[in-house]
C-alpha cells in the first residue's frame, strides 16, 4: 500500500514538473495574432458571426452566448443563479424556477450545455444544462434565450454526467457523480460499500413543447459516474457513461480511488430500459422533487412531484455492461459514425477507443471478465478497437471534425492532439494556454460536425491577459482546423468557468429569434392591456399596483395610500410592441433588484416599505430621449 502511494506521489510530482517545463518553454513558441489570423476572426461592423457558441458559466451557474469566430459576448443567460440585470430569480414570475426540495437555491455549478438534436444533428430549438451541486437540469428556449424550465433529480448525489441527449432529444440523462445512500439514510460513511449507490436518470423530453418529465431511473453500483454520450447510428439505443472510483473508496480519493489499473465505461441499453418500464418492470420508489416551468401565462410554476420508477441494473440482464477502461476515465465520447466510444483518462498515458460492433459481439459470446457488483464486465481485448499511443499527458475529452479525425484535450500537457480514427496515429498537436478541460468543435458530438474550428476551454490563464489581482479570467481559444496544421486564431476571456460549450450555425437560430411578446397573448394574471387599465388595488395589507410602461412614462406615476408594513407588488406591463425596447423599473430601498420588462411582458417585484415618506421610482433601461423623465413617486404613510 505504502509502496503504491509513494509511486503515485512521485509520478504526480513528475507530471507537475513536466507541466511546469512545458508552460515555461511553450510561451516562446507562440506569438499571438500571427499571419492571417486577424482576417480569419474579423467580423466587420454590422455583419454577423457564423456560429452561436453557448458556453457554460461553470460555478457562476449561468450560460454565456458568444459569436464565433469573433469571440464577442452577446448575452449571459441566467439559469441557476439570480441575475439582477434581468431580475431573473428576483421577479415573482421567475423565482419559482429556483425552487428545490432544499428550498430556494439561487446558485449552482453548471457544466454541460447541450443543444437539442433531431436525427443526431443540432436543430436549434433548446439548450439544456445541468446543475451539478443540487441535482437539476434546466431548459432554455432558443427563440427567447430565456430559461423556461428546471427539474430536480431525486436519488442523486451530484449531477455531473448530464444532460447528454439521445439522438432525437428523446431523453436527457442525469448520472450521479457522488454515490450516496439511496434512499438517503443516516449511516457511517465507512459503510460506503454496503450502503452507497448511484442512479442514472432518463428524463423524457416532449418533442413538441420540450417539457421534461422524469421517466425512470436505473440503480447502479455505488461508484462515481462522470460523463456520458448517447450512441448514434449503429449504437442508437445505448448510452455510455465513464466512471471512476471502482475502488469504492470513501476517504482520500486522490490516492485511494487511483489504485485500480482499470475503471469502467458503463454501457446502458436505454431502449431495453424503455421496454422494461413499458412492461411495468422495476419498482415505484418514493421520491420528492421539484418540477418548475414557465406556464402559458409566462409565469413560473412549481410542482412537487412524487415517486419514480426504478430499475435495479443487476436484476435486469442486458441493461448495463461495464467496459474496462484504463485508469480513472473522465471523458466519454462517441464518434460521428456511432461505432467508436472514446475514453479519456485523467491519469492515462494513452487514449483507449472501444468498438460498438465488438461490444455487441462480446455480449453475444459472453466474453466476460467476471462481474462488478452484479454487472457483467466485458473483456478489454474483446471490446477495444485501438489505442492512441503517446498522445500526451492527461487526455480528457474528444470531439470530431467529421473528416475522420478526433481531437483530444490534454489537461496535464496543456495541448490539443489530433489523431486519425482507424489508424489511431497522432497527426498534429497544438499547445493551449493553460490547462485545457473540455474542447469543442461546432457540432463535434453530432452525426455531422460542422468542423472549421476547435475551441479550447482553459482553466487558467496566468500571463495571457492584463493581470486583475490574484483572480484571473478563464478563457477560450479559437483554433483553425481547416488545414493540416491546427492554427491558433484568437484568445477571449469567458464568464466563470468555461466548462463545456456547444455551437451551431447562426442560421439555425437567428431567424426564429423572438422580437417581442405580442401583448394580446400576454396572459399574466396581473397584465394590463392598455394604459387605461392601470390602477392600484388594496387587499388587506397587500397592495397590487397594475402599472404600464411606454416611452416615456409609467401609469400610474403618483401612488398614494400605501402604509409602512404593507406588501407592495408592482406588476409592470411593458406595452411596447417594438424590438429591443424593454423598460426597467426600480424603487428606492428595494431589497431585491430592478425589473427588466421585455416588450409585451409583465413582470412583478415585491417591495416592502419600511419607513414613511415619498419614495421615487424610475425606469432603469435607457429607452428614449425622455428616459430620465420616466419616473414617479410612491407615498408611504405610517
Amino acid at each position, binding site marked *: 500500500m505504502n509502496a503504491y502511494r509513494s509511486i503515485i506521489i512521485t509520478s504526480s510530482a513528475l507530471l507537475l514538473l513536466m507541466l511546469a517545463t512545458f508552460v515555461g518553454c511553450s510561451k516562446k513558441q507562440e506569438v499571438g495574432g500571427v499571419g492571417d489570423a486577424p482576417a480569419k476572426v474579423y467580423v466587420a461592423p454590422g455583419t454577423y458571426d457564423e456560429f452561436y457558441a453557448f458556453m457554460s458559466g461553470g460555478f457562476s451557474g449561468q450560460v454565456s452566448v458568444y459569436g464565433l469566430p469573433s469571440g464577442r459576448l452577446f448575452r449571459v443567460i441566467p439559469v441557476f443563479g439570480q441575475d439582477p440585470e434581468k431580475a431573473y430569480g428576483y421577479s415573482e414570475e421567475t423565482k419559482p424556477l429556483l425552487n428545490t426540495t432544499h428550498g430556494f437555491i439561487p446558485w449552482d455549478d453548471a457544466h454541460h450545455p447541450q443543444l437539442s438534436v433531431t436525427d443526431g444533428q443540432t436543430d436549434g430549438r433548446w439548450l439544456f444544462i445541468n446543475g451539478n451541486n443540487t441535482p437539476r437540469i434546466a431548459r432554455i428556449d432558443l427563440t427567447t434565450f430565456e430559461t423556461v424550465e428546471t427539474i430536480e433529480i431525486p436519488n442523486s448525489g451530484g449531477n455531473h454526467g448530464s444532460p447528454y441527449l439521445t439522438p432525437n432529444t428523446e431523453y436527457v440523462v442525469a448520472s450521479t457523480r457522488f454515490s450516496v445512500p439511496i434512499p438517503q439514510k443516516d449511516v457511517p460513511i465507512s459503510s460506503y460499500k454496503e450502503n452507497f449507490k448511484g442512479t442514472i436518470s432518463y428524463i423524457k423530453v416532449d418533442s413538441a413543447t420540450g417539457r421534461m418529465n422524469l421517466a425512470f431511473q436505473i440503480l447502479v453500483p455505488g461508484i462515481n459516474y462522470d460523463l456520458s454520450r448517447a450512441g448514434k447510428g449503429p449504437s442508437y439505443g445505448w448510452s455510455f457513461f465513464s466512471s471512476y472510483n471502482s475502488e469504492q473508496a470513501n476517504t482520500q480519493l486522490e490516492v485511494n480511488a487511483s489504485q485500480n489499473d482499470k475503471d469502467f465505461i458503463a454501457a446502458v441499453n436505454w431502449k431495453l430500459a424503455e421496454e422494461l418500464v413499458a412492461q411495468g418492470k422495476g419498482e415505484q420508489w418514493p421520491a420528492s422533487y421539484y418540477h418548475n416551468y414557465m406556464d402559458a401565462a409566462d409565469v413560473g410554476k412549481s410542482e412537487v412531484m412524487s415517486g419514480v420508477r426504478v430499475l435495479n441494473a443487476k436484476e435486469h440482464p442486458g441493461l448495463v455492461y461495464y467496459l474496462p477502461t484504463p485508469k480513472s476515465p473522465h471523458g466519454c465520447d462517441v464518434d460521428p459514425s456511432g461505432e467508436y466510444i472514446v475514453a479519456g483518462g485523467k491519469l492515462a498515458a494513452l487514449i483507449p477507443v472501444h468498438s460498438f460492433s465488438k461490444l455487441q459481439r462480446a455480449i453475444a459470446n459472453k466474453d466476460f471478465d467476471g462481474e462488478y457488483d452484479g454487472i457483467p464486465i466485458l473483456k478489454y481485448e474483446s471490446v477495444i478497437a485501438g489505442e492512441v499511443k503517446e498522445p500526451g499527458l492527461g487526455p480528457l475529452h474528444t470531439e470530431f471534425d467529421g473528416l475522420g479525425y478526433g481531437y483530444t484535450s490534454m489537461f496535464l500537457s496543456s495541448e490539443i492532439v489530433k489523431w486519425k480514427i482507424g489508424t489511431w496515429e497522432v497527426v498534429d498537436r497544438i499547445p493551449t494556454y493553460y490547462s485545457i478541460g473540455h474542447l469543442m468543435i461546432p457540432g463535434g458530438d453530432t452525426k455531422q460536425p460542422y468542423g472549421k474550428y476547435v475551441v479550447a476551454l482553459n482553466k487558467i490563464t496566468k500571463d495571457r491577459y492584463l493581470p486583475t489581482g490574484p483572480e484571473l479570467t478563464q478563457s477560450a481559444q479559437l483554433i483553425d482546423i481547416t488545414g493540416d496544421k491546427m492554427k491558433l486564431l484568437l484568445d477571449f476571456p469567458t464568464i466563470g468557468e468555461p466548462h463545456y460549450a456547444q455551437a451551431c450555425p447562426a442560421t439555425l437560430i437567428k431567424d426564429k429569434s423572438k422580437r*417581442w411578446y405580442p401583448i394580446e397573448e400576454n396572459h399574466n394574471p396581473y397584465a394590463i392591456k392598455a394604459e387605461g387599465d392601470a390602477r392600484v388595488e388594496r387587499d388587506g395589507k397587500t397592495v397590487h399596483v397594475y402599472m404600464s410602461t*411606454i*416611452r*416615456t412614462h409609467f401609469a400610474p406615476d403618483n401612488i398614494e395610500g400605501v402604509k409602512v408594513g404593507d406588501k407592495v407588488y408592482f406588476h409592470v406591463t411593458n*406595452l*411596447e*410592441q*417594438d*424590438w429591443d425596447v424593454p423598460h426597467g423599473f426600480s424603487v428606492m430601498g428595494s431589497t431585491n433588484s430592478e425589473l427588466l420588462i421585455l416588450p409585451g411582458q409583465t413582470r412583478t417585484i415585491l417591495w416592502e416599505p419600511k419607513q414613511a415618506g415619498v419614495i421615487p421610482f424610475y425606469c432603469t433601461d435607457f429607452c*428614449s*430621449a*425622455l428616459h430620465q423623465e420616466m419616473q414617479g413617486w410612491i407615498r408611504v404613510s405610517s
Partner: protein
Amino acid sequence: MLSFTYFFPLWEITLEAPQYPEGLGLEIWINQMQGQHPGDLNKINNLNHYIGMKTIKPESIPELKIMPWVMRGVMLLGLLVAATGRRSWLTFWLLIFIAVAAAGLVDFYLWGYDYGHNLDTEHAIIKVPGMSYQPPVIGAKKLLNFRAISLPGIGGWIAIGSFTIGLLVWLWEMRRQRKPATNAA
C-alpha cells in the same frame, strides 16, 4: 382589374431611421390601414404619442368605410361603360375617376395636415422651427429623425394602370373616330 385594389395597399408611407434597420411603415388599403410589418402601427402610435400626435385608429377613419363603396361605384360604372362601349360614357367615367382620385389625394393631404399640425400642444415636446409633422402626399420628407417616403402601393399602381388603360382606350377611340372623318373628306 380594379377589383385587385382590394388585395393590395393603395398607398404606402415608409419611415426610415437609423433605429429601425428592420423597416417601419404604414399601408393604406382600400378599407383599412395597417403596418408594413406586424406591430408597425403600434410602434408608430407609440412614437407619435411622444410628440403629441394623434393615435391612428383605423376603425375610426371614416374614409376607410366610404372608399370601398366609391371604388365599387367606379368599378360598376367602368363595367357599364365597357358594356355600352360608348366613348362619351368613357369620357364621363374617366372624369369621375379623376375626380375620385383628386378627392382621395386632397382628403389624404387634409388628413396628413390635421395629423401633422393638430398636435396636442401639451405633448408637442420636440419643436423644430418651421417643421410640421405632416407626412408628404407623394415623395419624401424629413420628419425629425425619420425620412418619410410616401408612394402609391401595388393597389395604387393598379388603379393608375386601370385609369391609363381607360385613357388609352379613350385616345384610341378618338383616333378611330377621327380617321373615318378624314377618309370621308
